[in-house]
């Protein structure tokens, strides 16, 4: 039997050195050193009659502004203006590559970290701060930019995305060949989320109904303090093979490759060819959130190793070395970033606190008598303090 009991994958291989940088299956079009490279299946195509350099400069700008959103918000948290902030430092290329691959009619289901994708969809970055400041739970209109609300319960949105995609199928907006009509959905989640039942059920439903959804997983190597090895012992993109749809691992720090792969996956969905799993292989350079202390669980060496793969630096090197952008361009982007920073700093402090009685709003499409009575009683209670100072506090 011992021969027969000796089958299955060789784990040493799986997380051996070959994997450290994503392994051979990593799809890359722009190296950390800023060199363009070829890939047999994927190439960077900005689209009919669109200037390539212009597009890449646009990506650069997007990533710089996205990073600025992150650093400003982090600073605002330090200054007590935000309760907490989920940092995306290091994941700019993954988010801009995915965000720019979308068409207006596509719909996005984000986690709590998709600030770059939100920016691509035209959501005012300021409105992202409300949730972290505690003045709302997501103030943008999901249907205004086809960008859903941040979802905090890990994995829940993967099912919403699949259901939304099933709705698109029922609207006959898949596989018609009309580029303005055919739509797809992208579900964002992290490496840790891949362990949740909901995410795996989403794979089941998407495969069963061949739903037009792209499962976009940013594998930033960590779920708070837990390394990717705790969630999977094989490369994560291979999870899709168990459900009968393709899985791809792209260099998540390479905006060109992420754009190309996501665009292909989205088109495949719009064409009616069903779901795709995209693993954007990247690294969480910051803490899990501003309340986390990564020094308790990870080595600085890793972080240093990944610094060399910075998603923005490689594009800057590429643009400069090939004379596709000059200082005036970079200065202009810098100025825009400063403006954005100003907008966020000033805007954040100006975000109005909700009114106490708003607690009772929108629990239902119309307030029930039961709830109205509770609200009125509370209003009367609050009124009873007018003039007098509430001693307050618990």
């Amino acid at each position, binding site marked *: 039997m011992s021969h027969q009991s000796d089958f299955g994958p060789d784990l040493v291989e799986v997380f051996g050195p070959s994997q450290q940088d994503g392994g051979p299956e990593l799809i890359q079009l722009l190296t950390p050193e800023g060199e363009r490279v070829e890939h047999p299946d994927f190439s960077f195509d900005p689209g009919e009659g669109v200037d390539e350099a212009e597009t890449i400069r646009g990506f650069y700008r997007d990533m710089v502004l996205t990073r600025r959103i992150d650093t400003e918000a982090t600073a605002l948290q330090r200054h007590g203006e935000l309760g907490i902030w989920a940092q995306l430092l290091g994941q700019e290329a993954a988010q801009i590559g995915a965000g720019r691959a979308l068409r207006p009619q596509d719909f996005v289901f984000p986690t709590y970290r998709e600030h770059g994708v939100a920016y691509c969809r035209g959501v005012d970055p300021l409105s992202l701060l409300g949730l972290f400041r505690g003045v709302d739970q997501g103030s943008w209109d999901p249907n205004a930019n086809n960008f859903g609300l941040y979802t905090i*319960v890990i994995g829940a949105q993967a099912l919403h995305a699949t259901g939304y995609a099933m*709705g698109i199928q029922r609207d006959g907006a898949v596989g018609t060949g009309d580029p303005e009509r055919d739509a797809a959905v992208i579900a964002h989640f992290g490496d840790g989320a891949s362990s949740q039942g909901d995410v795996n059920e989403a794979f089941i439903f998407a495969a069963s109904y061949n739903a037009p959804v792209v499962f976009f997983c940013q594998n930033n190597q960590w779920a708070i303090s837990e390394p990717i090895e705790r969630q999977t012992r094989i490369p994560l993109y291979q999870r899709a093979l168990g459900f009968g749809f393709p899985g791809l691992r792209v260099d998540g720090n390479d905006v060109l490759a992420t754009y190309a792969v996501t665009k292909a996956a989205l088109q495949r969905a719009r064409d009616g060819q069903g779901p795709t799993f995209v693993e954007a292989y990247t690294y969480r350079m910051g803490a899990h959130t501003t309340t986390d202390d990564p020094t308790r669980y990870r080595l600085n060496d890793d972080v240093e190793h990944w610094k060399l793969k910075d998603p923005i630096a490689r594009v800057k090197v590429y643009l400069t070395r090939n004379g596709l952008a000059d200082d005036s361009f970079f200065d202009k982007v810098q100025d825009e970033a400063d403006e954005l920073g100003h907008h966020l700093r000033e805007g954040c402090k100006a975000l109005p606190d909700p009114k106490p009685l708003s607690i009772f709003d929108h629990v239902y499409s119309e307030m029930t008598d039961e709830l109205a009575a509770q609200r009125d009683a509370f209003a009367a209670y609050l009124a009873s303090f007018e003039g007098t100072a509430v001693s307050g506090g618990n």
Partner: protein
Amino acid sequence: MATQKITLAKGLNMGLRKAMEDDPKVLIMGEDVGKLGGVFRITDGLQKDFGEDRVIDSPLAESGIVGTAVGMAMRGYRPVVEIQFDGFVYPAYDQIVCQVAKLQFRSQGKLKMPMVIRIPFGGGIGAVEHHSESPEAQFAHTPGLKVVACSNPVDGYWMIQQAIACDDPVIFLEPKRQYHADKADLDEDAGPDPLFQSRVVRQGTDVTVLAYGPTVKTAMKAAEAAAAEGRSLEVIDLRTLSPLDMAPVLESVRRTGRAVVTHEAHVNLGMGAELSARITEQCFYSLEAPVLRVGGFDTPYPPSRIEEDYLPDLDRVLDAVDRSLAF
């Protein structure tokens, strides 16, 4: 239109069909709801007539069913989810309480969540474990959800249509024991009562008995038996559990001074607890006795051979009535 005699199962089936005819956005999702028509045949014939895109057999995963229904609702559909049995709603509990119940509040009304989750509930069918549960209190405790329970064929026909038309998520409880039991006359011209209204189904003067779903019949039988002994029970079919429609309840208790609540769910933290608390808060000086509760015991649902000992029956209701009157 002539009236017709229907069972609860038939009423629900007709109501679902009507809702699907009236609104093309209405979808049915669940396990075995298609060719089989559901294990209770409530969706019988609907897939044949409305197609597989509107009557959707789902993979075997309740969280998946409710979670994808959320996405469909966001896309503008009105999903009606069937949970096969009460005891199998729990894998979907997270999606229901954290997503379905909260999306309107989270989005400050920018998103609507017009979803109905149908749950055959309660016992008395001689089933194995997990097939006879009464989970209503857990949903009624969750703000953002509405919870209703039908008790008869005519309500079944109307209430399911009203629940589907409601822009809020509705947990729709169906007393499975009654599905194929008594028939009633449906007169479509008569029209429905509002969905979120309780109804006095028997007038009386001595004690108010509050019931919903399967225990309405129990309460009515108890009232008959009591009448034979010269006691006049007023019976109220609550119909809506969240929000509660307290007006008729309070009006009644102020007259009778006594109330007994009966449900199959565990007494501890069951609907009876909330009703007792509210009645006492609002009728304190009218109460001649504390509100008494007759429900399932605070144990897991027992093997079916002794389920009738576990379930409230007319004798236990009458016993509570006696105790109330003895105060």
